[in-house]
């Protein structure tokens, strides 16, 4: 193992995924190489220092505001549920088609584009519709319509899905 290889493997070394024979080679190299010793120590120190910038205390007044907001929104949401269920299936299909169309032509606003891309990563059913627009949007299966229509809910409140 040379210095370059050693540096390359430092991530594995610290997350414990390094194979035993490599760990041994690394140990032997370190004994003989001051430069790598210093590199390893400062690499480790960097990780530790950066963890210490974590701000884990939420100020009490922020916490109270946030809680009041969340509880209030949850109440409103319960009241809204009826409105949601009255959103017709046709509206959802139209929405899904438009989303696939605009995604394919690159005209979807960035916020919804990134939500759609994320979703495509996780959902094999929707992925083909969100790749290149190869599938005609007229034939979207019900499951995909459901998923795509729900993507709008991930937008920040007040954002319009298609930017209008």
């Amino acid at each position, binding site marked *: 193992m040379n*210095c370059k290889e050693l*540096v390359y493997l430092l991530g594995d070394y610290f997350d414990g995924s390094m194979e035993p024979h490599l760990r041994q080679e690394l140990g032997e190299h370190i004994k003989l190489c001051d430069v790598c010793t210093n*590199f390893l120590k*400062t690499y480790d120190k960097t990780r530790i220092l950066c963890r210490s910038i974590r701000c884990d205390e939420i100020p009490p007044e922020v916490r109270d505001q946030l809680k009041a907001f*969340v509880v209030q929104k949850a109440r409103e949401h319960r009241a809204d549920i009826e409105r949601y269920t009255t959103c017709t299936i046709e509206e959802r299909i139209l929405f899904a088609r438009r989303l696939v169309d605009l995604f394919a032509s690159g005209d979807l606003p*960035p916020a919804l584009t990134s939500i759609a891309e*994320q979703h495509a990563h996780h959902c094999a059913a929707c992925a083909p519709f969100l790749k290149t627009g190869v599938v005609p949007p007229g034939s979207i299966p019900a499951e995909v319509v459901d998923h795509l229509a729900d993507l709008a809910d991930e937008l920040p*409140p007040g954002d319009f899905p298609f930017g209008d």
Partner: protein
Amino acid sequence: MSTDRLQDDNLLLEELRAGTEASVEALFERFHGKIYSLALSILKNDSDAQEAAQDVFITVIRKVGTFKGDSALYSWIYRICVNSCLMRLRSRRRNETVSIEEFMPVFTEEGMHASLVDDWSKEVERNLLNKELGGVIQRYTDSLSEKYRVVFVLSDVEGLSNEETSEILGLSVPAVKSRLHRARLYLRERLTRYMTQGKVE
């Protein structure tokens, strides 16, 4: 309804779907600290972090009916949080991020270090995290591009495993490891220059 019972993910989800107020409070108690700190680590701004946290809870409450449970509850919530932060970052015109290439270590053709490396790790122990150094680290992590910063924050700042980070971001584990490693190499080099030259570039 005891709050203890709602420590269990499935029960909590069930209650949230049913829309009970106790479940909303249990959700809040369990996750608000983590959500806020993650948002603050990514966004570096209190009011942005607060707004992002609001969005996360709204989204979770709205989407809980369609959450399939194919990932752990916390990782679903973290993913929503990261997405919400990324959208805020993108809509905000950020200061220029640095190209990390010029801060990567340099080797000779034989694979040896091209220059000597100072060991400043002891130096830091002596004057452990004074305010200035804290600010410097903030500034350097802030200069990482989004691609590296989010992985770095989840793994090294929040302390999640590579597997957890990979699930939250929808990246492969090797991709997470490689981004994390490069982010650390970058930060190590910047800290080295700061420690040895004593000034922020």
